């Protein structure tokens, strides 16, 4: 007899059950139950946002190099558990080829963003030649806590593609996984947990996006929302909910399997530009020529 795995959620580096005590059953293509998954609730959103907020300082102040190391570690850990993920995908109805392809893209995508960690700043920053005796520069800083509703049509690909640029940029995340294809999300949490990622940087909840998104979008301590391939109504209601604290809302209609669905714009969408001024003292008339 198979031992059915119970998938818990991932909050603050822990794997608790949902506060609501609810679960739902995920079934394979033939209608056989594969797993029990948490049906997370508002309270889990609340806990996850708290954990994410707490982690903002730690994560955003890690050196870019260190963030890159940790992301690369994620890729290694995922590669090491490739078979498990392929199995989960196939259980959820994909062919082996398609599953293998998806996991390989995921690994590549993580490596891709691992490489960005210590580079995007150089592309997004500028030194601004102001017309006064000041040194003036602009640089990117993470927006803060980002709520992500993962692509609902993929189990891991959308999740990874949305999550990586956000955390590569130093943000922390509360992520709602695909409701119908949730398995990989929690397994991926296990990858994160073993990749030296500080607790709370990524928090993953399973359940109904429709139920949880309003809470996330209205949450005053969430700074941005990232939706993927969402229906117009969901976009509009999210944008309306986001108004109260002026969350940044990014909606991307992307085919995540495509290489064009990655890039620095996914990072820069969750960055704020900070401009700093400081006077330059000039003594006497000496110039740099000699």
């Amino acid at each position: 007899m198979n031992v059915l795995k119970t998938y818990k959620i991932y909050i603050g580096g822990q794997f608790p059950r949902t506060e609501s005590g609810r679960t739902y059953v995920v079934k394979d293509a033939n209608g056989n139950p594969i797993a029990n998954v948490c049906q997370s609730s508002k309270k889990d959103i609340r806990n996850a946002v708290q954990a994410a907020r707490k982690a903002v300082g730690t994560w955003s102040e890690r050196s870019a190099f260190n963030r890159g190391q940790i992301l690369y570690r994620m890729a290694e850990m995922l590669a090491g558990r490739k078979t498990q993920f392929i199995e989960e995908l196939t259980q959820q109805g994909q062919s082996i080829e398609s599953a293998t392809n998806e996991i390989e893209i995921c690994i590549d995508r993580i490596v891709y963003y691992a490489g960005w960690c210590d580079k995007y700043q150089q592309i997004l920053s500028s030194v601004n030649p102001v017309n006064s005796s000041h040194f003036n520069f602009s640089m990117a800083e993470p927006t803060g806590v980002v709520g992500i509703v993962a692509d609902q049509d993929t189990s891991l690909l959308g999740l990874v593609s949305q999550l990586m640029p956000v955390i590569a940029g130093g943000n922390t995340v509360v992520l709602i996984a695909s409701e119908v294809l949730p398995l990989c999300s929690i397994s991926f949490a296990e990858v994160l947990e073993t990749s030296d990622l500080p607790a709370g940087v990524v928090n993953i909840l399973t359940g109904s996006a429709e139920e949880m998104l309003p809470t996330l979008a209205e949450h005053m301590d969430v700074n941005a929302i990232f939706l993927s391939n969402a229906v117009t109504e969901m976009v509009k209601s999210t944008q309306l909910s986001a108004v109260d604290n002026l969350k940044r809302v990014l909606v991307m209609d992307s085919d995540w399997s495509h290489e064009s669905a990655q890039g620095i714009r996914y990072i820069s969408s969750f960055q704020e530009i900070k401009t700093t001024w400081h006077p330059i003292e000039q003594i006497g008339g000496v110039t740099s020529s000699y």
Partner: protein
Amino acid sequence: MTDSNNKWEYAPSLEGTKHIQLKDKYDLFIDGKWVKPSSNKYFDSINPANEEKLAEIAWASESDVDLAVKAARKAYVEVWSVMKPSERAKYIFRIARLMQEHARELAVIETLDGGKPIRESRDIDVPLACNHFFYYAGWADKLQDAFPHRNIQSLGVAGQIIPWNFPLLMAAWKIAPALAAGNTVVLKPAESTSLTALKLAEIIEASGLPAGVVNIITGHGDTGAAIVNHPDIDKIAFTGSTAVGKLIQKAVAGTAKKVSLELGGKSANIVLEDAPIDQAVEGIVNGIFFNQGHVCCAGSRLYVQESIADELVRKLKQRMQSLYVGNPLDKNTDIGAINSKEQLETIEKYVKIGINEGAEMFQVACEIPGKGFYFRPTIFTNVAQSSVISQEEIFGPVLTVQTFRTIDEVIQKANNSPYGLAAGVWSDKGSRIFNLTSKLRAGVIWANTYNKFDPASPFGGYKESGFGREGGLHGLEAYLK
């Protein structure tokens, strides 16, 4: 001090107004022509320094907005988006040059219409506005170089709504990057300060810019709402209050309109004990009393390290004694008129709240004119973080002073606000400055300076202070796909 007879007062030194040309009545600038408002309604623009009427301004209705948007769309499709970028650049350069040629006239009108001291409009607002056009003009044919990692495209028609605190400068901040990026524009100035935008329309008319590329329409909130709700506008750029910014966000939810918002603030100005104290005092004065405190990034929350608080406050009060409040046209005026009666009432309301909250008020005992809207420079000490006056944006010459003991404490307190527009840090120690500047959640950080602006320097906020940047390379982004 002994009673001396060396008192030396500066006699009034009024900027001349004879050279300016103002019409009695201004229509709407649509499609390169001056058009009467369909409602035939006009409103008065008054001089807040003496409450006298300056001109009548057209009140645009929804149908006028529609006319303007249609003109902008047509100009976008037929002319501006297909014009060689280097030609676009030349038009923008030409506008910049014409503005320079009218600089003094623009400055005087700005001062008459808005109440700001002539010294500021002459030395700050107008030169910065001209420079903004100069700066962005050169970008028009280099856009791809600005964003080599993506295929850039203009957006279309931009609807732009600007505030009354820097009327011409904000018009420049909006129009210049929009045009450089290849968009056409429908701009609405604030109802109390339409005149320099209308003078700019005259300059644009004289520049030979193709009709409809820039349309300047005047009116009240309903005119602005008609712009925001117009279905054929691709981009809304707004500078103003957070409350209105949120209304705009709500109105555009679910549409394809791209939005940039530059909203309110309650910016912290932090003075550490090793600061160059006299320059810090000057920075505090410049931070809160510049433009009568009608500045979204005003350093309205002062945090002083306890060990120097007494000395700093004493120096600040001393410095405030040499601020001249009065006729904005006087070249020696440091603080001019409050922009409108409504704003004066808002300021007075907050000052009452401050007094009721038990804060200690200090005001300069200077004379102020009997007519017109004026408010004395004011500071409140003995203020808590939870006082209303240290949380809400007052938008006037009113400063709250709080003390702190440690750097960690002040970082937390400074960030403890829904806003995140700007912050100031004063210290002599580089490593300490960088610690603070990197931890403060604000879009503009002035270290050992305050309220500096430059066309090349991106400006804009975190959190409820808005999103998107204006100025610099980053400012182009708001007008490109």
